[in-house]
């Protein structure tokens, strides 16, 4: 296979920069693997290594600092057949840390070449995540206070199935790159090198020193046995193929004559665990069964199992404009938390409005008609209060009728849940 080097864009690195050696080694690798230019995408990160994509005739994507793995992930998921190689410096590695860890956990078949030269070359030699503590960098004393990270140990701990460390100055570089590219899964190759423009101006770092340090370090030998597992895109495709098609949305036909005209507002004020939101939905569905329009707006604490739970339902015979409460017709006061949260609503209730109020709930003063209900006495659990009060409304032909309510229950629930909901309705209206 021919070289994929872009002859019109020769590398522009400083003399002696290891990046240039990596460019040629990568080209040798791609040729040896017989990969055509249009089967390879090089996704480059930022800094001097961010120029990599321009030196090749392949597909290329160059984006923002530290984010190369994010674009590569999208490309590869959309086109799993493409060979995607990400080049990134130690700078991009640090700023994109969350993406690196996630890529290790995910195990998508990408190759990450870390061009590790222990500093930010392009911006002037500042310290990076891999700068040794005793190195002289443009970040003054700051790197002395931090510990450099070991890329291979990090990615192994994060679940990468392949992590290798090599010197960019060694002869075997192209073979090292080939092993990483050939690996099926997320492969990280930590390539150590020299930045002649910045780092080695103030720090001694010879090929022999790099070799020696690499030899003395544990790990970084390639495939990591305990992290072997199926590749992500293949796993995704298999999981996707096993999915059942989604249920179409429930469609409600208008089978009943509406009981009301105009706009009517109902507020269910309860507490978490009282199935307030579900009851609101059932009320809306029951009204829709009579051809009415409906909206539902809920309020609950973000810690879902505690605190007030409130549902505002509007039903109307025409398109509903404002979705907030103007003047509620009916309030279902089912728990103290809900009533306390909406104390303000009671002041403006008109005389014709109705409050169905649980016996254990204290109401603020209001002009509405109040119907007290002892749910306990009727053998209705707190979780069934909301549905039971809908049944009471329906029994007295307020907003919806009992057949409308029963039809909504049948559309919303099935099996055991439906049977128990029907029982609750019965119990609520028994004398």
């Amino acid at each position, binding site marked *: 296979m021919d070289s994929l080097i872009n002859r019109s*864009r020769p590398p522009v690195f400083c003399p002696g920069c290891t990046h240039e050696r990596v460019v040629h080694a990568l080209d040798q690798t791609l040729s040896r693997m017989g990969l055509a*230019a*249009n089967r390879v*995408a090089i*996704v480059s990160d930022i800094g001097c290594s961010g120029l990599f*994509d*321009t030196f090749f005739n*392949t*597909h*290329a*994507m*160059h*984006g*923002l600092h530290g*984010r190369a*793995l*994010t*674009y*590569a*992930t*999208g*490309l*590869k*998921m*959309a*086109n799993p*057949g493409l060979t995607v190689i990400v080049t990134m410096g130690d700078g991009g590695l640090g700023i994109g840390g969350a*993406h690196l*860890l*996630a890529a290790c956990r995910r195990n998508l078949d990408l190759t990450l070449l870390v061009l590790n030269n222990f500093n930010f070359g392009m911006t002037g030699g500042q310290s990076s995540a891999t700068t040794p503590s005793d190195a002289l960098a443009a970040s003054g004393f700051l790197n002395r206070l931090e510990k450099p990270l070991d890329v291979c140990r990090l990615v192994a701990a994060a679940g990468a199935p392949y992590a290798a460390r090599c010197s960019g100055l060694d002869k075997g570089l192209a073979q090292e790159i080939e092993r990483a590219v050939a690996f099926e899964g997320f492969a990280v190759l930590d390539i150590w090198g020299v930045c002649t423009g910045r780092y080695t101006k103030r720090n001694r770092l010879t090929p022999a020193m790099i070799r020696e340090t690499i030899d003395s370090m544990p790990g970084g030998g390639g495939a990591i046995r305990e992290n072997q597992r199926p590749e992500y895109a293949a796993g*995704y495709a298999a999981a*996707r193929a096993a*999915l*059942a*098609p*989604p249920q179409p*949305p*429930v*469609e*409600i*036909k208008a089978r009943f004559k509406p009981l009301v005209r105009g706009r009517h507002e109902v507020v269910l004020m309860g507490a978490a665990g009282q199935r307030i939101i579900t009851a609101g*939905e059932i009320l*809306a*569905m029951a009204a*829709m069964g009579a051809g*009415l*329009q409906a*909206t*539902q*707006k*809920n*309020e*609950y604490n*973000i810690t879902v199992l505690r605190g007030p739970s409130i549902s505002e339902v509007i039903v109307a015979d025409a398109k*509903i*404009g*404002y*979705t*907030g409460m*103007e003047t509620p017709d009916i309030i279902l006061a089912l728990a103290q938390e809900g009533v306390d949260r909406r104390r303000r609503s009671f002041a403006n209730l008109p005389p014709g409005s109705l409050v169905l109020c649980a016996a254990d709930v204290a109401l603020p003063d209001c002009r509405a008609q109040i119907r007290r209900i002892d749910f306990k006495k009727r053998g209705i659990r707190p979780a069934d209060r909301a549905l039971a009060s809908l049944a009471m409304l329906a029994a007295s032909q307020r907003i919806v009728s009992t057949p409308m309510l029963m039809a909504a229950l049948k559309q919303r629930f099935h099996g055991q849940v439906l049977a128990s909901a029907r029982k609750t309705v019965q119990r609520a209206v028994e004398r």
Partner: protein
Amino acid sequence: MPATFMEGNEAIARGALAAGCRFFAGYPITPATTIFQTMLALLPPAGGVCLQGEDEIASIGFCLGASMAGFKAMTATSGPGISLYSEQISFAIGSEIPVVIVDVQRLGPSTGSATRGADGDIQFLRWGNSGGLPVIVLAPVDVRDCFELTMRAFNLAESYRCPVFIASNKEIGMTRESVSLNALPRPAVIDRKAFSGTDRFLPFAADATRKVPGFLPIGGDIPVRQTSSTHGPDGYITTDPDEIAAVQTRLDQKLKASIRRFSYWAQYGPDTAETLIITYGISGRAAKSALARCHRAGAKSVALLVLKTLWPVPADLICNKSANANRILVVEMNLGQYVREIRRLLPDRQVEFIGQMNGRLIHPETIERAVCHG
């Protein structure tokens, strides 16, 4: 006609599928999470890809990668996530990557209130990118709009190769509403135009009239270059001032010069009204109720313009619709953002502002009082 009971977020997801979306990535955040949940339920069984990114930056980055591979892509978040998207939004603008971005706005600043609505990101969506080039922002009013405008957002993203925002609001996204699926408007689906020339493919070469480069996917037969660096038509970094200026001007003009083709709006009340209410988003509903109240109360010379395209500013539309009005009331769920644009366009008119940022909807009575009693 049978009806379903659906929230705005679900309608956005369904609109995306109807528009041909094949890739979604998001990071959970209230009040946008149910878009992710719905996409996860719908997209993979349909052969698409839905991913949960490790953060917002990754989620939109995935989308940009997938879009460059030729997939229609969408992401969804709220204000705190838009902040994190910013660098990638700039990339999508400058490098002409189609993507639909949903902002289900919540009350800010910052973490703010996860479950309270606001329209506090309206200027942020426009200006929250480096370079200041224009973006398209559409604003739905209800569930029906969520579906339709999402389809249109995809069409625009594909046609103009740019990010398109849907400025929703917790009060739309998480409010359920009866809606008839069959009656939902379904605009014809538009796909991005492929490069069809016989010359060498230049990824950012565009003709002077259309101003949008033909697309080829990364991973296709012809190698494609994509870059976030300042580039010329060949996709290589450039320092040539003329080449740079030409690209910047084209990016600015490709949207601004076409705004008339995608100025969406709704108008209520007489054309000749002396008082015009201008609003957008969820407040459009309160304003419509308020308009009915005003008319009932005898204030007949009042009309309402609900803008559904906010950016680029549909200047001609706004000027035409307000030609007869001597008094303009701008209603927004913030402390005054889009009103700046209206004042800029209508310097000779009395422009009043009604807004609030307290986590609650603006009440129709508030608007009515302002209209009738000033």
